[in-house]
């Protein structure tokens, strides 16, 4: 009996009118968990009932706590006939089972009905008293933390990465049971919703058990999917990475009072905020840990040392690149490298699958990247006879995983990162797909424990280019590739092009900006049944993949880039066609050679017009490449050998570097040319496909001015995000009305995606300059002749000023930071009467900050206000924008405030966070990214995993299919927000809509839709809010204005 669940029903509001005669409702509530049900009294004649019930107590096993949702049903009491259901609320108890997550669920939750949608709200209180169960044979896994985020969550550090966990459970789909013929659609939908809730609870519990077995305490990158196999059943499967996480405990109180302190750890993981100028080929390693170190050396106060401990932990994660004496150690490392390989190899081979669904890694974890590995298989679905033994499905996935593993091995890699699995089902045919990026990982986080020598080896590899160095044997390349010496370090070989499924490593050296690249393909297929159909599909697949790959390669070259990140290839099957959509973010990796252009060649250059045609096309292509290079600011930097060995150059040296770069620009272009000739990409135009390809290449719509787009977490080259974010989902269904050729279909499909993007840009034009991040396209063929495209992404505004002159500005930004840091130090120094801080030359992360520390030394003799004046006047000299000046001075004047007692400071900032909205509904931000710009996540409250069905029999009255789906998506958002708010959170990160199955029957005036969403509920605190409480009013106003576009 290890758990007591307590629920209290407080009140309802906005209930629908259930009694036409009185225009009122006699509502009561049933609270159900497992097989126990409690009821409240009937609150007669009110649309805003106040039940204020007693605490309903359920004494249950923790196994049930994990599996079952708390089910709250609101009903209308009817004396003469059966009580009418108003709607239901399912509450996932899981977040309450983990001591580090939420402690209570309390708030207004929408009452949801699968036929009518949201019907009012109910205010509930839910708590869990959990008793420790130390039984070794227990079936529960309470306390294991789950994160959708595919990187180490912000306020944790990874002690150990254990590896891949997977599980699947199957069941019959209630929609296909015999009983469905006699029950109402509502009952059927509710049975399905409940079943899926139960199944995902069970799945999560089983995965948790596996994690405990491995010795971990958390699952990161938890990805749960549904396969609606129709007649043959319902499969819920999940994968994730088991880890042992440790909370960076001191950050919470410390950051609440010391805003600028939060920056070191933030900079570590979010290059988006880092101030390193893009395109500067400095392989100095992450400068931030060094700064963090400086911090600790200046920390006489208690709260300080706590903060520094947090940065110390960060430090230990980081290769100490800056300390090592570069070159010599590198040469010694030769044999060590092999040793390391063996070590990690064995560590990983012990695992069944060395797979990691993570897409971003702690610094130093990812050593080398081989390339994308993927496997697909076509299966015929059969009825799952025994749900308790889902062997066939397990075996299918096993096959695929084995294949992935062997592919990775062929690339000389022991691990697969950015790993994901997906399915596409049409009738009884199912395509299972898995893909990931072959990679070599550091053994540091593995179970076997590292050797010190390995550390030393790793230290040598520059994090900016190290991951690009080929992991495979040069003489034994598994695929044709041109290898060159790394353009950063000139010591190791790199491939000419790199495709990966992971996010761009934060420490990577990138030139210019990135952009979304999509390859789209549509192929017709003959209608077939059963095995024949499966054969047709599996025969088509390789061609589809090949073409997608070619398209990606062409488009990449057309943009003058050389690497793809976040590659996601989706293949959908329909009765008469196959759709392929590959999305990725193209970037120019400084370490890789400049891509050659695209050359068009005619096979039979017979007459002049033909030649002219070709040369015209060639010119067009060359123009586009040139234009794109300008657009994405791709000016490949000069050879960077100078920098090796001096990771932290003196400011003077740096400026010289800049100069030399501009001077030797001729040289650069020369270099480019030679390469351009060498690996020029030749398209033969006689080939009709190639004509199409070229056409497709040139018709891609450039993003409008002020917009950038990517499908990864962050956009290289953009740092200064504002707090305005807008997450959105857009769905389009397109009907093809004629029998079309593959080429015609291709064009339609491509236009569909392009138009959708165009619409998004137009919709979000008020946020310019902005970047659409994590653009996630999902295609489906819901019916014959229908194509459905769903997009979920987040638009984030950034500051244009700094974009234009990012080099200079980033320097200035550093200065401000330095000032605030010094300001912080100043405060403590004054308080404790300490000696003058001696600015350690090593401590200055950027050249300019040295000036900052001088400033602080001078400022020690003056009072705060004059210091503020100095700061502002100094900044004025730098022609900073007015608001920055204000910020600077405000910070200084209010520094006394920061010394206020920690808890109070925190609660205050939290309160203000809620109150600024001015309304009774707390603002909840949603984002598919793992972070919120300008804010710090201080707590993870648990995973949000919700499944909803909505059905209508009055489609026209609800505004047709668009009206129906629009309402439903809005309702889903509302429910996610409400549940997050009830957990005490103010944002959802790593949000994704994993399933959106839409079916319609306009003739019958009916439609049905299933949506599955997930994410991590968090509490974040604005950095500006942390800064001071005295400027609360000011910040409140700015927040409201931000909230206009953001939130």
């Amino acid at each position, binding site marked *: 009996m290890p758990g007591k669940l307590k629920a209290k029903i407080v009140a309802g*509001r*906005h209930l629908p009118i259930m009694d036409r005669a009185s225009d009122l409702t006699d509502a009561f509530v049933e609270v159900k968990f497992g097989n126990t049900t409690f009821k409240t009294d009937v609150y007669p004649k009110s649309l805003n009932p106040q039940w204020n019930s007693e605490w309903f107590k359920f004494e249950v096993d923790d196994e049930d706590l994990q599996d079952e949702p708390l089910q709250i049903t609101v009903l209308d009491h009817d004396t003469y006939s059966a009580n009418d259901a108003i709607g239901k609320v399912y509450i996932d108890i899981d977040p309450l089972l983990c001591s580090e997550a939420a402690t209570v669920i309390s708030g*207004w939750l*929408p009452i949801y009905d699968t036929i009518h949608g*949201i019907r009012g709200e109910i205010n509930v209180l839910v708590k869990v008293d959990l008793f420790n169960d130390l039984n070794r044979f227990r079936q529960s896994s309470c306390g294991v933390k789950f994160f959708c985020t595919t990187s180490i969550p912000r306020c944790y550090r990874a002690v150990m990465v254990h590896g891949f966990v997977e599980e699947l459970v199957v069941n019959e789909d209630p929609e296909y049971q015999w009983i469905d013929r006699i029950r109402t659609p509502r009952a059927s939908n509710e049975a399905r919703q409940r079943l899926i809730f139960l199944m995902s609870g069970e799945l999560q519990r089983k995965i948790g058990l596996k994690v405990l077995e491995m010795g971990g305490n958390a699952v990161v990158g938890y990805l749960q999917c549904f396969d609606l196999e129709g007649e043959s059943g319902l499969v819920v499967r999940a994968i994730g990475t088991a880890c042992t996480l440790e909370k960076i405990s001191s950050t919470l109180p410390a950051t609440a009072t010391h805003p600028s302190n939060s920056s070191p750890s933030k900079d570590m993981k979010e290059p988006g905020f880092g101030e390193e100028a893009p395109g500067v080929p400095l392989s100095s390693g992450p400068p931030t840990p060094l700064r963090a170190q400086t911090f600790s050396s200046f920390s006489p106060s208690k709260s300080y040392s706590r903060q520094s401990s947090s940065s110390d932990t960060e430090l230990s994660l980081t290769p100490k690149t800056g300390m090592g004496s570069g070159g010599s150690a590198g040469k010694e490392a030769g044999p060590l490298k092999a040793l390391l390989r063996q070590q990690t190899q064995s560590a990983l081979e012990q695992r069944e699958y060395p797979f990691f669904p993570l897409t971003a890694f702690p610094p130093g974890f990812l050593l080398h990247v081989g390339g994308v590995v993927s496997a697909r298989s076509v299966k015929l679905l059969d009825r799952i006879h025994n749900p308790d033994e889902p062997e066939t499905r397990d075996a299918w996935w096993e096959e695929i995983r084995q294949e992935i593993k062997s592919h990775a091995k062929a690339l000389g890699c022991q691990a697969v990162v950015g790993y994901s699995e997906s399915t596409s089902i049409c009738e009884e045919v199912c395509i299972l797909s898995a893909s990931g990026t072959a990679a070599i990982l550091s053994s540091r986080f593995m179970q076997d424990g590292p050797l010190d020598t390995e550390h030393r080896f790793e230290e040598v590899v520059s994090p900016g280019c190290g991951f690009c160095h080929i992991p495979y044997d040069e003489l034994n390349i598994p695929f044709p590739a041109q290898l060159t010496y790394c353009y950063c370090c000139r010591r190791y070989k790199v491939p000419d092009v790199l495709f990966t499924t992971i996010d761009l490593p934060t420490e990577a050296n990138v030139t210019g900006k990135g952009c979304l690249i999509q390859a789209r393909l549509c192929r017709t297929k003959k209608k077939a049944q059963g095995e024949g159909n499966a054969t047709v599909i599996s025969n088509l697949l390789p061609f589809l993949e090949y073409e997608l790959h070619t398209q990606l390669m062409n488009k990449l070259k057309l943009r003058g880039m050389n690497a793809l990140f976040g590659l996601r290839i989706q293949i959908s099957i329909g009765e008469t066609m196959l759709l392929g959509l590959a999305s990725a973010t193209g970037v120019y990796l400084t370490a890789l050679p400049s891509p050659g252009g695209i050359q068009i060649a005619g096979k039979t250059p017979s007459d002049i017009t033909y030649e002219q045609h070709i040369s015209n096309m060639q010119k067009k292509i060359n123009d586009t490449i040139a234009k794109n290079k300008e657009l994405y600011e791709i000016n490949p930097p000069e050879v960077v050998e100078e920098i090796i060995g001096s990771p932290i150059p003196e400011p003077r040296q740096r400026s010289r570097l800049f100069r030399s770069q501009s001077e030797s620009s001729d040289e650069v272009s020369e270099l480019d040319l030679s390469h351009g000739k060498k690996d020029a990409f030749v398209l033969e135009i006689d080939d009709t496909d190639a004509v199409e390809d070229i056409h497709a290449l040139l018709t891609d*719509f450039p993003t*409008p001015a002020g*917009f950038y787009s990517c499908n990864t977490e962050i956009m290289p080259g953009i740092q200064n995000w504002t707090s305005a974010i*807008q*997450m*959105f*989902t*857009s*769905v*389009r*269904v*397109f*009907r*093809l*009305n*004629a029998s079309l050729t593959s080429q015609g279909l291709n064009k*339609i499909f491509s236009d569909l995606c392009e*138009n959708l993007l*165009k*619409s998004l*840009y*137009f*919709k*979000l*034009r008020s946020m310019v300059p902005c970047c659409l991040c994590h653009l996630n396209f999902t295609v489906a063929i819901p019916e014959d002749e*229908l194509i*459905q495209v769903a997009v979920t992404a987040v638009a984030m505004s950034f500051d244009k000023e700094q974009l234009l002159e990012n080099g200079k500005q980033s320097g200035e930004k550093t200065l401000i930071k330095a000032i605030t840091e010094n300001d912080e130090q100043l405060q403590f120094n004054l308080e404790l009467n300490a000696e003058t801080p001696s600015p350690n030359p090593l401590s200055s992360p950027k050249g300019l900050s040295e000036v900052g520390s001088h400033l602080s030394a001078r400022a020690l003799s003056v009072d705060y206000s004059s210091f503020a004046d100095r700061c502002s006047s100094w900044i004025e000299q730098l022609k900073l924008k007015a608001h920055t000046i204000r910020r600077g001075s405000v910070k200084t004047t209010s520094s006394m405030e920061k010394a206020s007692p920690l808890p109070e400071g925190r609660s205050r900032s939290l309160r203000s966070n809620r109150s600024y*909205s*001015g*309304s*009774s*509904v707390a*603002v*909840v931000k*949603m984002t598919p990214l793992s972070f919120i710009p300008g804010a710090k996540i201080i707590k993870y409250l648990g995973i949000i995993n919700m499944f909803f069905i909505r059905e209508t029999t009055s489609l026209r009255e609800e*505004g047709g*299919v*668009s*009206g129906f*789906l*629009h*309402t439903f*998506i*809005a*309702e889903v*958002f*509302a429910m996610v*927000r*409400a549940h997050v708010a009830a957990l005490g959170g103010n944002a959802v990160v790593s949000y994704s809509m994993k399933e959106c199955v*839409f079916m319609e029957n306009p003739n019958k005036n009916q439609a049905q839709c299933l949506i599955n969403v997930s994410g991590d509920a968090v509490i974040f605190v604005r950095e500006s809010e942390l800064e001071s409480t005295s400027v609360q009013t000011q910040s409140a106003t700015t927040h*409201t204005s931000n*909230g*206009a576009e*953001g*939130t």
Partner: protein
Amino acid sequence: MSTELDVFVGNTTVLDEDVYQLWLDGHTVSNAVRIRMEAGALQECEANAEVLHSDTMDQFRTFQMCERLLQSPSKVANQLLFQIPPHRQTMLIERYYEFDSVFAREVLGKKLSKGTKKDLDDISSKTGIALKCCRRQFDNFKHVFKVVEELKGPLVENIQRHFLLSDVLARDYAAIVFFANSRFETGKRKLQYLSFQDFAFCAGQLISYWTVGAVNNVMEDLDVDLEKEFLHDLKDLKVLVNDKDMLDQHKSLVCAQLRGKIKVFSEMEASFKNLSRALVNIASKLTHTKDFRDLFIDLVEKFIEPRRSDKWTIGDLRLFLKHYSSSVHTLEAFRHQVIWDRYMGVIKSCILKMYHD
């Protein structure tokens, strides 16, 4: 090839104020697209007609979904379906309840009933306001009227509290409610020259000074109703024209004040008795519902029109009314000073507001 379904849902509801106005004005989607194109929307963001159409459809759908909430604005702030920042909520509500004064002028004083609603297409063709838009405005009037009718306390405050409107807009609604409740005659041809704003001003004056709520703060009833007692007392003012001594005294006092100050002095002096009788008679008749409803037409017919035909300037009129009402204070025999001031204060400002072409 056709787009079967096309939706865009933002976590923060995306609202375009220009499109909102088009929606409020009752345009169809295709009309709105055309207007947006003419306004140069295509220049933004390299859009095309298709994109614009999709965006307009989407926005219109969003507004339609919001409409249910806007009908009870207090719900907007604590509903969960749309995440809308507070200042945008205010904008949505305010704009939803804004109305065309041309339309309001047509409906003013009419019973807000189904019968009137049927006449809306006439009003629509007369004013050039889309029927859809007329309906919304009419329904808003009706809705506000119905809600406020049952409430006690000050009218403007009630409207503001329940509909979260700005002070200016709440006052306009108060005027509409007041007119609909009192059913003043406003439709006569002679009153056509008066705008909604003229009437709204007068209504404001009447509400502020003549209603129950104006004198005592006891919130017994809706303060749309005029104070019965006061209307009854107005009969006592007759003495001003019936008592010859008092009339003469009054006249000489006014003439002494105005001599040489107004151009129409001689006319005024000659017709003082008529002038005074017109104003006092209106006062004494207000107890009868019929006459009360005719307040504005009486003011125009019996006082404003004659002055206009005598070519009084507004300045002359102002001076006359000022001294006409103030000199009563020096009439020792007159004992209804308070009633007189309460009456004349309102009448004076109403006449001045209504005295134009």
